[in-house]
C-alpha cells in the first residue's frame, strides 16, 4: 500500500477517517438523492432529444453514425476500433510522442509533467 506520509510534514496530511470518509458519505448521499429525484420527478418516457426510446443519450453519436452508414457490420467494426482506441490511449500517446532524436522522449511521460 502507498505510504503518503513519506516526504511530507504532518501539516501536509489529513486523516482518512473521518475527513475522506465523510466526503465519500456526503457524495454517496448526493447520488442517492439525485436517483430519487430522477425516479419521482422525471416522467417515464423521458426524452429531451428526438430519438428512438431504445437509444440512450450516451449512444447518440453511434446512432447518428448508423443513420449515415446504413451498415450494421461497419458500425460494429467502428465501435470495436473506438473501444480499442480508448483502452490503449496511454500507450498510443507515448508512441505518438516518441522522438528518436530526443533522448528525453525515450522516458515515459509521468502524470505530473503536464500540470
Amino acid at each position: 500500500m502507498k505510504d503518503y506520509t513519506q516526504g511530507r510534514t504532518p501539516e501536509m496530511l489529513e486523516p482518512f477517517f473521518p475527513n475522506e470518509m465523510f466526503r465519500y458519505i456526503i457524495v454517496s448521499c448526493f447520488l442517492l438523492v439525485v436517483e430519487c429525484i430522477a425516479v419521482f420527478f422525471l416522467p417515464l418516457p423521458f426524452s429531451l432529444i428526438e430519438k428512438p426510446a431504445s437509444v440512450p443519450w450516451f449512444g447518440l453519436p453511434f446512432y447518428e453514425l448508423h443513420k449515415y452508414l446504413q451498415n450494421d457490420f461497419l458500425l460494429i467494426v467502428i465501435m470495436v476500433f473506438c473501444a480499442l482506441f480508448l483502452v490503449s490511449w496511454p500507450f498510443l500517446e507515448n508512441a505518438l510522442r516518441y522522438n528518436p532524436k530526443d533522448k528525453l522522449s525515450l522516458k515515459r511521460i509521468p502524470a505530473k509533467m503536464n500540470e
Partner: protein
Amino acid sequence: MDDTKNEFNKSMGEESSFLKEIVEKNITRKLIPKGMSWFGCMGGISLVAFLVQTITGIFLMFYFIPGTKEAVASIQHITHHVPFGWFIQRIHAVGPHIMIGMVIGHMVRIFFKGIYRHPRELHWVSGSCLFILTLLMYYTGNLLSVGNMHELFATRVSYLYAVHVAVIPAIIGLFMGMHFFMIRKTGIYEPL
C-alpha cells in the same frame, strides 16, 4: 477444560487484534495528502452507483422471469403488484444513466488532468474496460425489458439474462479488483 478455554480466548484475542490492526492501518490511522478534490470522489460515486444497481438487481431477480413472453409481464407484475416494486424497478432503470454519467465524468477528469500517464497506464486500461462493460451491462439490461419485442432477441431472453446477471458482473468484479489493487499500490493522484 480450562486450557482449551484459555487457548480459545487466546486465538480469539489474536484474531481481534489482527482485525484491529487491519482497520487501524487502512481506516482509522491512515493519513492522506491534504486538499483532495471533491471531484476525486467521482470514481467512488460510480462504485456506489454500481452497488445500488447490484442491490436493486438482486431484488428484481426474485420476481423477474426471463422468458420470451413472461419477461414484460413479470416487469409489469413487479411494477404494479409487488410492494415498492415500482420504486426498485425505477431505480434500477434510472441508475445506469447516472452511473454512466459519473463514469464519463470520472474519465474526462482523469483524461484532462493527464492522470492516466506513467505509472498509471494500467489504471486507465482497467477503468476503460470497466466503462465498456458498463455500457454492455446497460445494453443487455435494456434488451431484457424491451428485447422480447424485437424479433432478433425474441428467443434469446434467457441467454441475455445469464449474460446480464452473471457473466458481465463477474468480469466487472475482476476488473474492479484490478483497478482498486493498482490504486492502492500506486496511490491516489497527489495534488501539486
